[in-house]
């Protein structure tokens, strides 16, 4: 059970998230170069990677990131403008930073130098020659415990005439964290006495920051000798206004007590009594607001969640699976006995076990948005490489899927998107000639549909030509010439190994390698692929996937003496049929259900069962590949929580089964893989007819 908590591994996981965030933000900046929040967000990500990298010994990554951070610091300060070139080099730099952290041994320093040289050219100077104070900051990274400081300062009277800008100093303080600034105007004289060049304002700032105390001194480094600066640590403990004023020594305890005897607001009272100025009360109220905000932010951070290692979640899921199996055995015992109290207890345990299963599966669910955002870069880079203008739009990012599914979906989706980019969307000139906009769109969406998730990749390109696909399939012998196939069947041929209609092979696609891999990967996830296309308008590929790979709801059935599980998500209805009708219908394998002819497979003959058949067959109608197919079984045993166990290597290639599960009595039931079972059944039937 012990799972080691390697801090380096933890840092790498956090860095991975930061890199993904940074990539997303950089792509957003490219679209919205004036968005200051985005630039700040990119800067913060770089800053954290630099600081954390140094802390965990990734010095090369830290030093490299420092240069990029400096460039973006200049962007923040308006010294450098955002350009497409800067975003491009920042993205490449991000990739290099990632290598430096994830695979430092594979990092090539000359690559890093080349990137820095590009960066220097883009921002018009050598970023290595940044000011020493910033360079020194990289030695002393962030990740200090967050603290809140009360900073009271009065600048020298000649501060303004000696070229200092208090507004700039306040801006620098704000850059250190969350800062609430209050100006105290009490010392400003009347108009006849004022010297317009003297700085009369005094400032009180509340700064919550992860930077060390010395960072505050750095802001005032050229004024420290002549100015008044008082820095105190403040605990964000939600204090009352009176306590804050007492702490600031702005009011005496006696004055406060006297004011408190009245029912009016304490601040207004103290001002009225002449005990403090209105500005001081304003500053104290600002402090109160700031501290409340910090306390809320801290509470939110605490409630935001904890990081749990994926292995622990897998272990938890395994244990819940064992519990579900044990509970099924308990249920069987209870059913066999007559003890009402025992039965009630088993029912209670069943309820708890079901809730635990739902909660555990919920923990494993993660939004698909993080996966979608990874494709933005892919589309951006590839469309440039191919000389196309393509926009990626997404929807349903909040749709949640089992984390294992999300990890395993990445490669198939990359293949599908690359294919849309290369073969689907036309070149800008060709699109214009067809009356389309120059910019093509690839739309990626996800939506829950019952116990499944539908992931759709839709493009507005040229679509798939069914005649061309058919011709190619006939030419390569995939299908016999002249066979009657629907467009939907024809489109499924693109998933055959080695199938490609592309005239030219590009670095992106066209070799016919990939779509069959996609099919295998989706099959491996117990999913299916639907393709629709309208020539000249675009193509849509829909992946139908189960919500989870661990536990499913199944329909337990009996065929002969063996029991099998049919995934409940595929079951549409069950009908009964007299076995004697088999003879009457002379072996025709169709049922008429409400006027619709539905083909069905006899699992008894498919599994070579020789035991005497029942008087009635039960036909389970399942949905498969856009159609309905019946599976004839001997008995329906009921709904079953199915903990999926992988088949052994010896049995993994047996067609028609996706796994196995352990039943309450300890016996094993095979889980039917519906699409493959139907394919297998059709093949068997074709063979038997041929013979």
């Amino acid at each position, binding site marked *: 059970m012990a799972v080691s908590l390697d801090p380096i591994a933890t840092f790498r996981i956090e860095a991975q998230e930061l890199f993904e965030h940074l990539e997303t933000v950089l792509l957003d900046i490219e679209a919205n170069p004036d968005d200051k929040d985005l630039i700040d967000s990119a800067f913060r990500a770089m800053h954290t990677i630099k600081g954390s990298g140094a802390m965990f010994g990734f010095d090369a990554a830290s030093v490299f990131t420092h240069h990029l951070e400096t460039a973006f610091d200049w962007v923040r300060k308006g010294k450098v403008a955002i350009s497409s070139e800067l975003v491009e080099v920042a993205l490449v730099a991000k990739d290099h930073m990632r290598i430096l952290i994830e695979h430092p041994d594979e990092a090539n320093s000359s690559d890093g130098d080349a990137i820095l040289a590009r960066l220097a050219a883009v921002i018009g100077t050598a970023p290595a020659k940044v000011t020493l104070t910033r360079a020194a900051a990289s030695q002393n990274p962030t990740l200090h415990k967050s603290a809140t400081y009360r900073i009271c300062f009065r600048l020298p009277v000649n501060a*303004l*005439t000696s070229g200092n*800008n*208090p*507004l700039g100093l*306040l*801006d620098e303080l704000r850059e250190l964290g969350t800062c609430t*600034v*209050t*100006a105290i*105007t009490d010392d*400003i*004289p*009347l*108009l*006849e006495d*004022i010297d*317009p*060049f003297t*700085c*009369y*304002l005094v*400032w009180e*700032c509340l700064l919550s920051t992860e930077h060390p105390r010395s960072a505050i001194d750095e802001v005032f480094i050229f004024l420290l000798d002549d100015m008044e600066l008082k820095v105190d640590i403040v605990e964000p403990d939600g204090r009352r206004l009176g306590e804050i004023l007492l702490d600031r020594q702005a009011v005496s305890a006696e004055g406060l007590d006297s004011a408190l005897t009245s029912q009016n607001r304490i601040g207004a009272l103290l*001002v009225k009594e002449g005990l403090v*100025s*209105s*500005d001081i*009360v*304003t*500053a104290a*109220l*600002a402090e109160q607001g700031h501290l409340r905000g910090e306390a809320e932010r801290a509470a939110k951070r605490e409630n935001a969640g904890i990081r749990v290692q994926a292995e622990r979640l897998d272990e938890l899921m395994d244990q819940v699976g064992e519990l579900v199996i044990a509970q099924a055995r308990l249920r069987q015992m209870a059913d066999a006995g007559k003890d009402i109290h025992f039965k009630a207890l088993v029912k209670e345990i069943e309820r708890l076990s079901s809730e635990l299963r739902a909660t555990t599966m919920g923990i494993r669910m993660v939004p698909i948005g993080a996966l979608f955002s990874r494709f933005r870069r892919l589309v951006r880079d590839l469309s440039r490489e191919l000389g196309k203008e393509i926009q990626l739009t997404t929807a349903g990012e909040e749709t949640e899927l089992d984390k294992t599914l999300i990890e395993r979906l990445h490669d198939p989706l990359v293949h599908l998107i690359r294919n849309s980019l290369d073969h689907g969307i036309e070149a800008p000139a060709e699109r214009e000639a067809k009356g389309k906009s120059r910019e093509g769109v690839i739309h990626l969406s996800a939506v829950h549909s019952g116990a499944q998730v539908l992931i759709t990749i839709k493009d507005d390109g040229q679509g798939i030509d069914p005649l061309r696909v058919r011709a190619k399939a006939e030419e390569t012998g995939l299908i016999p010439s002249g066979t009657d196939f629907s467009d939907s069947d024809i489109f499924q041929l693109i998933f055959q190994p080695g199938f490609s209609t592309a005239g030219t092979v590009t670095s992106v696609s066209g070799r016919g390698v990939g779509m069959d891999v996609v099919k295998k990967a989706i099959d491996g996830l117990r999913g299916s692929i639907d393709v629709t296309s309208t020539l000249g308008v675009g193509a849509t590929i829909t992946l139908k996937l189960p919500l989870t790979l661990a536990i499913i709801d199944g329909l337990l059935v009996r065929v002969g003496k063996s029991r099998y599980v049919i995934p409940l998500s595929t079951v549409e209805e069950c009908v009964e049929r007299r076995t004697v009708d088999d003879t009457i219908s002379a072996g025709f394998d169709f049922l008429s259900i409400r006027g619709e002819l539905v083909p069905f497979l006899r699992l008894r003959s498919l599994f070579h069962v020789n035991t005497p058949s029942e008087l009635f067959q039960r036909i389970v109608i399942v949905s498969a590949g856009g159609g309905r197919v019946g599976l004839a079984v001997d008995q329906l045993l009921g709904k079953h929580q199915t903990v999926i166990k992988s088949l052994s290597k010896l049995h993994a290639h047996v067609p028609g089964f996706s796994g196995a599960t352990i039943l309450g009595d300890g016996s094993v039931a095979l889980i039917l893989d519906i699409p493959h079972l139907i394919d297998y059944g059709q093949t068997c039937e074709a063979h038997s007819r041929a013979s």
Partner: protein
Amino acid sequence: MVEAYSTVLEFSGAATIRTAEDIVIKLKQALAESDTLIIVCDDLQEVDITFIQLIASARKSAMVLGKTLQVSAPIGGELLKTLNRAGIQPTGSQSFWFQERSV
């Protein structure tokens, strides 16, 4: 009965340390001549701390003299941006900055 005079004093362009001396003179003159001084900052392009101090000082003087001083500044204009940067809070004695708005 004495008639109350009001003066509108408009500032535009830069109101910074470079123009501070002129601004003081204008403010003193306008305050001496009127009971209500309205300072219009619609076309200010650049503002620094000196201008904020001078207006705050003029407001203090006006209060001592029993006169009124109002500031009119556009939402999102330079003056309001500078007030925010300087930490002038829209409550207490400095609330007068934020009472008049032009769009």
